[in-house]
């Protein structure tokens, strides 16, 4: 991309929008070039935590030069972030990665799928994507979040593990029960969900773009920590491994092995 920056961002707002799920708007120049599906690296202020946390971009506000980051508290780093109040500062690097290839949806029936903490990047994608039809399937454990934002930008079909909202089961169950057909799929979520979607897309012969996740260190493609297996030899690494932070996080499902 060539336009990534590292700077100290100011927190505009912070709120808990669901159990352990936080929404934080930050003012950063990284918003200028950010695209749906890209992510930022957030650095902890506590120096004992050396590594940045990769956090997906949920919304982009270019006018206010702001990014919305919606994240789940899963450890000490994200717990630290959740305690920041408006006005506090956080170091950020971004935007990182490649984002969703939105041009693949033009004039087509697009199916957008988010699972768990993979739901947030689907919000900005749904806002910006130009498609003939936009269906959005979101899978949750039980409590829904970001559903209002998603409803505004497409037909929304939730799935919950306990059946408390929408279809009881997985995102695949929701696709089948609602008879949603698609020409192209964009998805972000846990690996088991992506694995099931890859299989589903291959069976139905649907083009699918999936956003992957792995433990990262540098975030810019230097350290080779966050690789995924690829079907063909990767051009940069010269082995069957691609860098999720650089060539990804979004890959054509056919090109990666899960």
């Amino acid at each position: 991309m060539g336009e990534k920056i590292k700077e100290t961002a100011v927190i505009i707002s912070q709120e808990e929008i669901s159990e352990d799920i936080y929404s934080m708007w930050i003012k950063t120049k990284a918003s200028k070039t950010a695209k749906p599906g890209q992510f930022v690296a957030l650095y902890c202020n506590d120096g004992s935590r050396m590594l940045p946390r990769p956090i997906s971009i949920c919304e982009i506000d270019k006018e206010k030069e702001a990014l919305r980051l919606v994240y789940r508290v899963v450890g000490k780093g994200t717990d630290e972030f959740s305690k920041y109040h408006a006005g506090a500062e956080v170091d950020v690097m971004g935007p990182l990665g490649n984002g969703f290839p939105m041009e693949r949806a033009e004039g087509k029936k697009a199916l957008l799928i988010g699972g768990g903490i993979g739901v947030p990047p689907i919000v900005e994608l749904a806002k910006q994507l130009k498609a003939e039809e936009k269906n959005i399937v979101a899978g949750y454990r039980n409590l829904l979040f970001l559903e209002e934002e998603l409803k505004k930008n497409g037909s929304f079909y939730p799935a919950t593990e306990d059946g408390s909202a929408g279809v009881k089961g997985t995102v695949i169950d929701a696709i089948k029960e609602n008879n949603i057909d698609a020409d192209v799929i964009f998805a972000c979520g846990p690996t088991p969900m992506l694995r099931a979607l890859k299989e589903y897309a291959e069976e139905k012969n649907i083009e699918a773009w999936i956003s992957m996740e792995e433990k990262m260190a540098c975030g810019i493609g230097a350290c080779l920590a966050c690789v995924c297996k690829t079907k063909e030899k990767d051009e940069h690494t010269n082995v069957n491994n691609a860098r999720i932070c650089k060539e990804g996080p979004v890959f054509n499902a056919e090109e990666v092995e899960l």
Partner: protein
Amino acid sequence: MNTSVNLAGVTLKNPVMTASGTFGSGAEYSEFVDLNKLGAVVTKGVANVPWPGNPTPRIAEVYGGMLNAIGLQNPGIDVFMNRDIPFLKQYDTKIIVNVCGKTTEDYCDVVEKLADTEVDLLEINISCPNVKEGGIAFGQNAKSIEAITKEVKKYAKQPIIMKLSPNVTDITEMAKAAEAGGADVLSLINTLTGMKIDVERQKFAIANKTGGLSGPAVKPVAVRMVYQVANAVNVPIIGMGGICNAEDALEFILAGATAVSVGTANFSNPCTTAEVVAGIEDYMRRHNVEDIKDLIGLVK
């Protein structure tokens, strides 16, 4: 003010370089750091053939550092020579290529291929398991260190840096063995073997079970080892292990290091290397130090 240092006849404009494996071949970091400002760029380890590396997760954060078991994934020497060396030649900095291998022949193969390139120094990573000796790392036995150093020197046209493993009983014994084998420079420390268990999931945090510990958590061990080695051998030393700022770098220099490498701190701040260069200059001004060489091994 003179910040230049000399490593086996190669003059570096300043003592600050990158630690192998944390900086790729510089391309990714060149978006954040002016590579012209660095004494040298030390590349990620390269082998005679491409290595796919270990399964993921390959890293885990620990208090004050991280564990890594990347498995030395690399594209192989041929791609490296066609792509990475020309990239680095665009900059006014010295090029140090880190070399890894599974057998002595693997190392020699790479060293021979690099002999006629515009690479300034070679750093030999002897923390790799020697597959012909039951997987014990070359760097964990004084005899094998001396032997591999001698072999590599037969093929090398550039000065050789032997990178020492800290996972040994007496680091000075290993340093002396490398010196006896003809090493021109020593670098230390490589990572300390560690382990982390994810208590909630009741699993190892990284797929390889063990990984190399790096970051500020290892710095006091590294400073101690640099001091000991500086007092045991006559070749220059590149010190590394948890350097995050100029103060850390100066600690190594005062302990006896001629140059220093920044590793894990590149991950917490991609601009660390350039900041360390500026910080050392600032220190020299504050302490009226005319020549950085006057600081090397000053603390006895």
